[in-house]
C-alpha cells in the first residue's frame, strides 16, 4: 500500500519484477518490533498543495485527489491552500473540546476495562479528527453509519457520556438492554445508526438509506466509515457499485489507520496506490485526506456533502491516519509493531495540531487547554460514578431477563413464548 510501506512490503520478500518465473508476494509492513520506525521517506505532499475543485466538477477531473493527500494545517499550525475551510473560532474550539472529551472518555473506559468493569473496549486515539471533523461538517439530520471507532462523532452529535457508559456496562440504563458488546452504540434520536460487529455491512446500507432519502425528496444524506482492512470485504464493492449506479447522496469514508488488528494495510490494500484510488474505477470522486488534520477532514467532508446535496452523488474519502492504541482491549500491538511507531508517525496528533492552530489564531491558550482537559477528566469521572449507580455488567441490575426475548420479532411467536416459560420467567 502506497509510499514506502509498499516498497518495503515488496523488499520484505524476494524481488518480484523480472523474475524468471511467477513468484508469490506476501506484503509485510516497513517496521516490526525491534526495528527503528522511520517515515522520513514517506514523501507526502505539502499542506495546501492540492487545488480544491468546484463541488460539481466532473469526476474525471478529480483523479489527482485520489493519489495525493489533501492537507491544510502546516508544521506551524497555520492553514494553507484552497482547502482551508471557513470555520468560526467558536466552532474550532468546539471541535478541539470534543476531541479532548473523546480522549478523556476513552482513557477512562480503558482504565475501567483494565479493572474488569467492562468486558471489552476500543479506543480511537489519534483518529479523533477523522470522525469528529466529519460529523462537524455534516448536518445533524444526516445519518451516520459508523464502525466501532467513531465514538467521537457520537459525542460530537451530543451523545450523553453517561448513556454511552451505561451501554458499555450493560446496566439497567443501557438503551440496548444489555444485548450488545460495549462500544456498539445505537442512537436513533441523534441520527446515529447501529454499530455492527460485522465489518463493512453498514457501508452498502448507508447507500440504501441515502437512496431512500433522495426518493422521498429529502435533503438528508448518509455518511459511513469503514477501516482500511474492511475495504477488502465484498460490502465495500457493493456500496461503491450501488452508489455509482444510482448516484446516491452518500459520503463513504475509509479510515486508513495503517493496520487491521495485526495486519498491515498492504494485506487488504495490496498494491493499490491508495484506498481513495479505488473510487476511480467506479466513476466516483476519491479524495485522500490527512486524517490527523481537523481542517482537512472537515473541508473534504464538506465538499462531498455539498456535492451530494446538489445531486452530484457519492464521494469516497480516505482518511490517512494512524491507530495510536491497541486494536481493542483484547489486543497487544507490541507483538507486531514497534512500540514507538506512533511517536514516529509524521502526521502528528490531531489534537496538538488543531490546538496549535487555534492558539495561533489567538482564540485559545495553553491555560484554556489545560483547564478544559481537567474539566473533561472531572466530567468523565462524574459520569462514571453516575453510570455505575445504575448498575454494572458484573453485579447488575441489567435490563430484566425477559427482555432478552423481545424485539426478535414484532410479536413474540410461540417458540419464544415457550422458551421464555422454560426459563421460568
Amino acid at each position, binding site marked *: 500500500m502506497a509510499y514506502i510501506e509498499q516498497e518495503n512490503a515488496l523488499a520484505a520478500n524476494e524481488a518480484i519484477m523480472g523474475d524468471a518465473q511467477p513468484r508469490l508476494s506476501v506484503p509485510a509492513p516497513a517496521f516490526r518490533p525491534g526495528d527503528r520506525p522511520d517515515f522520513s521517506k514517506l514523501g507526502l505532499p505539502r499542506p495546501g498543495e492540492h487545488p480544491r475543485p468546484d463541488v460539481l466538477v466532473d469526476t474525471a477531473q478529480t483523479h489527482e485527489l485520489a493519489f495525493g493527500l489533501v492537507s491544510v494545517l502546516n508544521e506551524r499550525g497555520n492553514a494553507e491552500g484552497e482547502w482551508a475551510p471557513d470555520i468560526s473560532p467558536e466552532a474550532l474550539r468546539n471541535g478541539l473540546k470534543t476531541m479532548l472529551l473523546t480522549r478523556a472518555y476513552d482513557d477512562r473506559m480503558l482504565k475501567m476495562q483494565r479493572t474488569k468493569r467492562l468486558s471489552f473496549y476500543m479506543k480511537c486515539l489519534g483518529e479523533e479528527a477523522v470522525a469528529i471533523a466529519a460529523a462537524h461538517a455534516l448536518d445533524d439530520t444526516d*445519518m451516520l453509519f459508523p464502525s466501532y471507532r467513531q465514538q467521537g462523532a457520537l459525542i460530537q452529535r451530543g451523545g450523553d457520556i453517561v448513556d454511552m457508559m451505561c451501554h458499555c456496562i450493560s446496566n439497567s440504563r443501557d*438503551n*440496548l*438492554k444489555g*444485548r*450488545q458488546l460495549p462500544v*456498539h452504540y*445505537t*442512537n*436513533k434520536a441523534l441520527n446515529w*445508526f*447501529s454499530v*455492527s460487529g*460485522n465489518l463493512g*455491512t453498514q457501508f*452498502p*446500507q*448507508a*447507500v*440504501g*438509506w*441515502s*437512496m*431512500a*432519502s433522495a*426518493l*422521498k425528496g429529502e435533503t438528508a444524506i*448518509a455518511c459511513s466509515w469503514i477501516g482500511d482492512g474492511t475495504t477488502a470485504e*465484498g*460490502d465495500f*464493492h*457493493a*456500496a461503491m*457499485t*450501488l452508489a455509482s*449506479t444510482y448516484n446516491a447522496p452518500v459520503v463513504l469514508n475509509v479510515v486508513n489507520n495503517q493496520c487491521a488488528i495485526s495486519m498491515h494495510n498492504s494485506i487488504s490494500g495490496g498494491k493499490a496506490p491508495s484506498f481513495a484510488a479505488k473510487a476511480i474505477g467506479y466513476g466516483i470522486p476519491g479524495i485522500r485526506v490527512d486524517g490527523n488534520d481537523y481542517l482537512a477532514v472537515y473541508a473534504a467532508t464538506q465538499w462531498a456533502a455539498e456535492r451530494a446535496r446538489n445531486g452530484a452523488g457519492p464521494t469516497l474519502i480516505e482518511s490517512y491516519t494512524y491507530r495510536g492504541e491497541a486494536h481493542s482491549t483484547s489486543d497487544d500491538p507490541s507483538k507486531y509493531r514497534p512500540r514507538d511507531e506512533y511517536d514516529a508517525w509524521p502526521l502528528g496528533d490531531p489534537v496538538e495540531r488543531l490546538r496549535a492552530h487555534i492558539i495561533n489564531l489567538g482564540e485559545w491558550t495553553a491555560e484554556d487547554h489545560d483547564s478544559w482537559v481537567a474539566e473533561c477528566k472531572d466530567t468523565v469521572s462524574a459520569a462514571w460514578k453516575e453510570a455505575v449507580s445504575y448498575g454494572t455488567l458484573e453485579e447488575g441490575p441489567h435490563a430484566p431477563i425477559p427482555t432478552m426475548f*423481545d*424485539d*426478535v*420479532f*414484532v410479536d413474540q*411467536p*410461540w*417458540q419464544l413464548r415457550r422458551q421464555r416459560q422454560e426459563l421460568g420467567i
Partner: protein
Amino acid sequence: MPQLNMMQALTDAIDTMLSQDDSVVTFGEDVGYFGGVFGVTRGLQEKYGATRVFDAPINEGAIIAMAMGMATNGMRPIAEIQFADYIFPGFDQIISELTRIRYRSAGQYTAPVTIRTPCGGGIYGGQTHSMSPEAFFTHIPGLVVAMPSNPYDAKGLLIACTESDDPALFFEPKRLYNGPFDGDPNKPQPSWKDHPKGNVPEGHYTVPIGVADVVREGNDVTVIAYGTMVHVALAAAEAESVDADIIDLRTLIPYDIETITRSVQKTGRCVILHEAQKTSGFGAELAAQIQEDCFYHLEAPIQRVTGWDTPYPHAHEWSYFPGQSRVARALKKTVEFA
C-alpha cells in the same frame, strides 16, 4: 374474480402495494424495464416509474443491504433474488444485519424488507436453478419465512409480508407458476385456469402469517407439506386413497404448531414432505417438535419424504424429486405401521 396464474397473482400483489403505499419500491436483477426473468414485475416500471421499480446490479448482498438501508429510512422494499440458488451472496446481510437490526438496536431501527425468490426444481434447471434452501433461513432468529402453494395464497401472503414490520423471505415455487403441478412430469402441464385457488380477488387482502391451511381433511395420517409438495401430497393420497389430513404450512417461520398438533393428535401418524435435501431440512425441525408435543399420540415413526442429500441433478431430476410414488409409499408404510 379474475382467474390468475401464480405469476400474475404476484404481479397483482406488488401492483396493489405500489399503488397504495408510496414507501413501497421493488428492485432486483432484470426487474425494471424487462419485468423480471419470470415476468413477475412486468409492466410495473412503466406504471410507477424507474425510481420505484428498477434494475439492480448483480450483487445479491448489495440488493439486500440496499433494501435494508432503505427500510431503516421508512421504505418497504420488495427485493427480488432471481433464483433462490443465488441468494447466498446475500446470506450475511440477511443473518447478520437484516434480521438483527431490531434486536441489536432494541427496537430503534426496524427493517420491513420482503425478499421474493423463486425456488424448487422440476424445470430441468440443474443444480443452480432448482434449490429449495428454506431450511437455512428457518434457523435465523427474526426472519419470517413463507412459501405459498397457489395464486390466492401467493398474493395474500406477499401483501401480508410486505405490510409486516418483520423482515420476510418469500419463496415462490417456480414449478407452480403456471399450474398446480402434482409431481407427474408426464401428464400435460395443469393450469390455474380452472383451479379454485386461481380465483384471485382484486385489490387488497391478506393471508395471515403463521396460519396453516388444511387442504384435505382426513383421519388416518397427517401430511405436512408446503409449496409444490402440497399438490404432490394431494395427488398421492388420492391415488392411494389414503384418508390423509393434509396441511399446507404456508408459513414456515413461525409455523402453525396448533394446527399441526391438532391434526397429529387426531391421526396419530405423520409424514412430512419437502423438496429440499433431507439432512437438517425443515422436516427435521417439524419432526423433532411433533414427537415432543405429540409423543403419547404417535402410533408410528414420523416419516420424512424429501430430496436426496445431493445437489439437484439435471438428467436425474425426476429421480431426485420426491414424487407421488415415494410419497404414496411413505403414506402406506405409515398408515400400516403397527
